[in-house]
């Protein structure tokens, strides 16, 4: 329901932006003082886990051995993809308000060992989460402000073809689905035998909505009438992604993989490239976009 409401509001947000141009009778034509952009974005992300509270089914019988059974969050195989639509509203030469609807896939993994003198049991837990992201952010374009009366000027203003920017904002993530793969191996005399392997839907063990913030930087390249914007963002979740009320409710995980989720949030580094198309044109016949 929340996702549908968000979609409706997002559509309203878009329609509001594309309402008919204001009156040309104004001395300073507002139509030429702003621009809307829509585009596609795609990229990769690298995800790390911030543990808030540790939970485990496997504990030591002695506090001195606690460390042996701690989950080991791995730093490899945590790369995944992000892709979707972007919408931006430039209301000033240096300021842009941005949003979008993006699919953000996240991966994280951990191992848990039961060490032994002759036999070691290793559980491997791999996770693949898919969120619908709705970011709201401000972008600051690092450029010189051109002071001119746009509707009195006879020549096209000099907008730099490459504009670096910094940006920051909030990110609202709605969980679409989450999957977990578990395998158990027994290692004995350097021989490893996998004796358990299964896949499990873990969507119910996670919060359906999470909130985070991000900051980043990039540059806008003008390519004809479109803009290419490579950017690098670092994202940090504010809230616990684990649903603490359902932590022990998946019997297959608790009884076979001896696993429950920690309370945690994510930090991810993402590299995204967007192709943005301006939506307001001085001449629609000749496709001359408004440039501010």
């Amino acid at each position, binding site marked *: *329901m*929340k996702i549908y*409401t*968000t979609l409706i*509001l*997002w559509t*309203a*947000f878009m329609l*509001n*932006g594309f309402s008919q141009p204001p009156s040309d009778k104004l001395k300073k034509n507002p139509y030429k003082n702003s621009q809307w952009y829509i585009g596609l974005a795609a990229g990769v992300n690298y995800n790390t886990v911030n543990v808030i509270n540790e939970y485990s*089914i*496997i*504990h*030591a*019988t*002695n*506090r001195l*051995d*606690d460390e*042996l*059974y701690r989950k080991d969050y791995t730093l490899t195989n945590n790369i995944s993809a992000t892709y979707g639509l972007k919408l931006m*509203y430039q*209301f000033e030469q240096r300021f842009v*308000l941005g949003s979008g609807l993006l699919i953000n896939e996240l991966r994280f993994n951990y191992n848990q060992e*039961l*060490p*032994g*003198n*002759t*036999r070691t*049991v290793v559980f491997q837990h791999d996770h693949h989460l898919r969120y619908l992201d*709705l970011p*709201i952010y401000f972008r600051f374009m690092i450029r010189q402000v051109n002071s001119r009366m746009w509707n009195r000027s006879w020549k096209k203003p000099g907008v730099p073809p490459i504009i670096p920017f910094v940006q920051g904002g909030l990110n*609202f993530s709605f969980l679409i689905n989450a999957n977990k793969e578990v395998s*158990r191996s*027994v290692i004995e005399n350097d021989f490893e035998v996998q*004796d*358990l392997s299964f896949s499990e839907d873990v969507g119910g063990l996670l919060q359906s*909505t999470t*909130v985070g913030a991000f900051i980043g930087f990039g540059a806008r390249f003008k390519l004809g009438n479109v803009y290419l914007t490579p950017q690098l963002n670092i994202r940090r979740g504010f809230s616990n992604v684990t*649903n*603490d*009320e*359902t*932590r*022990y*409710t998946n*019997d*297959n995980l*608790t*009884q*076979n993989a*001896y696993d*429950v989720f920690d309370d945690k949030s994510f930090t991810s580094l993402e590299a995204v490239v967007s192709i943005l198309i301006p939506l307001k044109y001085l001449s629609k016949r000749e496709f001359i976009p408004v440039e501010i």
Partner: protein
Amino acid sequence: MRSLLIIVLVFLLVACSDKPESFLPNEKFNSIFENPSEGVNYEPLDIIQTEDNGYLILAESALDAVFIMKITSLGQLAWSTTMPATFENPVADLIFNEGKYYFIASTQADQTATLIEVDDFNQSVTPTQRTYVGYRNPLAFGRMNPENFLLLNYNDTTGPVLSKIQSGFGQEWARRYDSTAIEIDAIDEIRNNTSANFFVGGFDNGENTYFHSLRTNGYALTFTDEQGIETGKVSGTSEDKVISYAYLGNQAGAINYVVNGNSFFQLAMPLQNNDSISLNQVGGESLIDKTENDNAQIINTEVVATANIINLYGTVDGRIKWTNYAVGSGSIQQIDYVGGNDPLKVKKAIGTRDGGIAILAKITIAGSRERIAVQKIPREELLGIN
């Protein structure tokens, strides 16, 4: 721009509000206690809920050592200790008395029953000066009534001996029940075999007691009066055995037992004074999925103000099955299983203060590591409302 801001604000309100989740139990945990030394296998014996709603667990580790562990109300290890080898063969039950917890263990030297004190606050386990000299081979310890306790021993020459232990842990009386004893080796064999539990308890404020032990004519659940004089017995052949018993009131109790290799559960076995009942006559529900050599536990508890009996036993597929019966009607309210691929055997189960149950079990991981498992099942699951 203003309408844009309004839309953003509305969106933030929608996104940040969260619809109320349907009720899900959170007083639930599942914990396995591991040791990196593979050979240190554990035999869990008893669990008791502590004053802070955590749990104290008594177990035997490798070479009959006494192992005590305290876990929190969420199933995490608080502290643990292994007693010196001068004490061994601990027996259930753990009992609570004046702020401390107690159980019985044997001295290694001559198997004398010794009272061991557990101080949860100071995280210490110490033998008391209270030894029951002449009462060797303790089999079970339990509560007779709120003030007194019962100790069951196996005497070398006369078989089972039941003692009343006063609130200060002094021995008030001791009774023997057979004129001849069975070889003590047989008791050791039984003690090392998980199939038969020795247990002792009282009901009607101690006016009646019961104990389960090996007697000259086989395993028997013996009933006595408050002076330990035998008033009844439930027994079978030497191959038959009582597994567990819980008194319900009105001269009836729930019993798990095995006859001719078949397991049964009788929810309400009536008892009259001086009854000598053959297990063949007890009747009840046949537990066709129960492993004969597995323990079974009966919890007499209250779930949402109604009297309930929860029966738990190990199934042939290595899990634990629990069934919640309403005492009055005998109707089944809920059935469920715990456990997965690795075999899980129930050792003890107790009702908890929040209306749930805690199950103490032994789990064998990857075919070799015998470890302690504790699972807390909330009241809502017992009633099937999750």
